[in-house]
């Protein structure tokens, strides 16, 4: 059973994610942000449930539509907003931008912007956790596009043969850029692909935060206790285009509207109020505090400086003296 506190935490995560993405959209449209920004509005239940199921000591690799995943893992909105604005106070000093968010302090290893790449990075994280006999796990967020990459299959295979402590949460939002899931994926199921590797593959309603949370929690427990990896397919939908500016020729407004009516945040709100787990006031307070966090994040990012351009000479290599190659960390 999910208690009130956990539900309110997830409600807060969903709101913070939604408000952040709405703010980014506005900033992009008013030319305050640049780049190919991927907005995750409509998919907040996966973000909230995934992060809420973790311990602080667990690791994540966010997806390329994962601003909310980074924010909720502990980074908060300000360093992510500053990163999106390319500022020195951004979590990657403004060098990475939207699809390279990382925050090692909060055990966020960083988005791999080449789809599917995070899958194989997670295998090494799993190897390291196992070597250290750690009881931490890694949760990898990915999209349906990744499931047709070679890395997806290579990595599931490795994670399975070595029984690594990894949970793969695939947000199937129906489209890999403009190509629909049906058009691109044989067999019609991502979860079923797990069968080939002898690991659990579970399909859930990605807009139902309860179902995602319960499934991810169970998978995390399995990973933590030596049961190996799990692949979860969460069926959801992105309300915005693949990137801000996407002409969206591949779907109709009616299709989008139909999913807007299945809003995961509204759904949770109704559930909490109907079941008496929370009052309207409590939920409003959470929503207002999300608004405030985003407002502050924008102000912080706008006021922040850009990294000194002289620094572009540095930072590629870690060895203190170029070429010496002998320091031991």
């Amino acid at each position, binding site marked *: 059973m999910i208690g009130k506190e956990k539900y309110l935490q997830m409600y807060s995560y969903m709101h913070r994610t939604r408000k952040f993405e709405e703010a980014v959209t506005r900033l992009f449209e008013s030319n305050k942000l640049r780049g190919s920004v991927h907005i995750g509005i409509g998919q907040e239940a996966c973000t909230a449930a995934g992060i809420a199921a973790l311990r602080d000591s667990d690791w994540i690799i966010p997806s390329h539509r994962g601003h909310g995943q980074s924010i909720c893992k502990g980074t908060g909105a300000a360093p992510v907003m500053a990163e999106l604005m390319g500022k020195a106070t*951004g*979590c*990657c*000093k*403004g*060098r*990475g931008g939207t699809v*390279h968010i*990382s*925050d*090692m302090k909060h055990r966020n*290893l*960083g988005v*791999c*912007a*080449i789809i599917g*790449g995070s*899958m*194989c*990075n*997670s*295998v*090494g*994280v*799993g*190897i*390291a*956790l196992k*070597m*250290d006999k750690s009881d931490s796990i890694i949760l990898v967020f990915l999209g349906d596009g990744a499931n047709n990459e*070679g*890395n997806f299959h*290579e*990595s599931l*295979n*490795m994670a399975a*043969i070595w029984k690594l402590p990894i949970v793969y949460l695939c947000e199937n939002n129906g489209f890999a850029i403009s190509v629909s899931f049906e058009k691109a994926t044989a067999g019609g199921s991502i979860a079923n692909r797990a069968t080939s590797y002898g690991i659990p593959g579970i399909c859930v309603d990605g807009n139902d935060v309860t179902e995602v949370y319960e499934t991810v929690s169970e998978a995390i427990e399995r990973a933590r206790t030596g049961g190996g990896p799990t692949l979860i397919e969460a069926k959801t939908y992105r309300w915005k285009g693949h990137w801000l500016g996407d002409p969206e020729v591949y779907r109709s407004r009616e299709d989008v509207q139909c999913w807007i009516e299945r809003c995961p945040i509204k759904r949770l709100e109704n559930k909490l109020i109907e079941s008496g787990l929370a009052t309207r006031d409590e939920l409003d307070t959470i929503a207002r505090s999300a608004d405030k966090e985003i407002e502050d994040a924008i102000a912080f990012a706008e006021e922040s400086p850009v990294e000194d351009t002289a620094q572009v000479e540095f*930072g*590629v*290599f*870690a*060895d203190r003296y*170029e*070429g*010496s*190659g*002998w*320091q*031991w*960390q």
Partner: protein
Amino acid sequence: MAIKTYANAIRDCIAQEMRLYPNVFVMGEDVGLQGGIFGCTRGLYNEFGAERVVDTPMSECSIVGAAIGAAYMGKRPIVELMYVDFSLLAFDQLLNTAAKARYMFGEQHYVPMVFRMQQGIGRANGPNHSQSFESMFCHVPGLKVCIPSNPADAAGLLRSAIRSLDPVVFLEHKALYATKSEVPDDSEFMIPFGSAKIVREGTDVTIYTNFTYVQRCVKVADRLEKERGISCEVIDPRTMVPFDKKTLLNSLKKTGKLIIVHEAWKPMGVGAEIAAIAAEEGFSYLKAPVVRVCSKHQCLPFNLDLENAVVPQDKEIEEGILKVM
């Protein structure tokens, strides 16, 4: 000092490092029970067990990607990809992630890892198992590139590579594995990156070369000295990234003439970069045009006669030297 083969120098260095540092481990294709197809990890599986000498499936990109993940977590993986030709399958993780993680994530990550691969001709492996790719790795910022030509350099550079905080591409040459030389036993023996080696001193012409051609050039140089009194300086850069410009420019100051010999293809090869450095920074020293003696821009054929027709021969090296004299 002990006389060792190139393969054993590599193996012994890995073993010494694994004994010293528990976070060093080996993963890759056939590295475990088999001990590597050229024996470079032989015996390690028995000594360190399957957890630190990991036989992987044939999944090059994910092997490299996994090594990156382990490196993020404080491990120091030594990855064997077997043939450099297979590294093309792993270029995504090598070039897009390993090379960039340090900078693009705002210097939060360390990516200490070594990618061992062998390249070159010498075993009748044909077009897909005989190529030389050093220039490809050098082009992208973020990777250090070692090109050892003898057992001692292999040991000294490999130890520096394992202890480096950065990703290092460690290119071996398959025709060198059985060659022998003296290797220091010292478990702290390291060759700093970016230190070229003057293999043979000379005053008339500078020869920049690598891998198997180092010894071939020395032999041609010895003969020309005896027969024609030409004094050649033979230099092995040992690492291409970082590249030791100082040794190149000092030698040019002395000789004024530069020949570059390598097995990799001539167009856009590392020789082109060395020639460009000479032109940009050593132009006033040059007394003759730079000459490159490199492979023809052609596949490496299976048949030995055909293969020899593609890669540089001693006669062409000699002609190159005589051309600038």
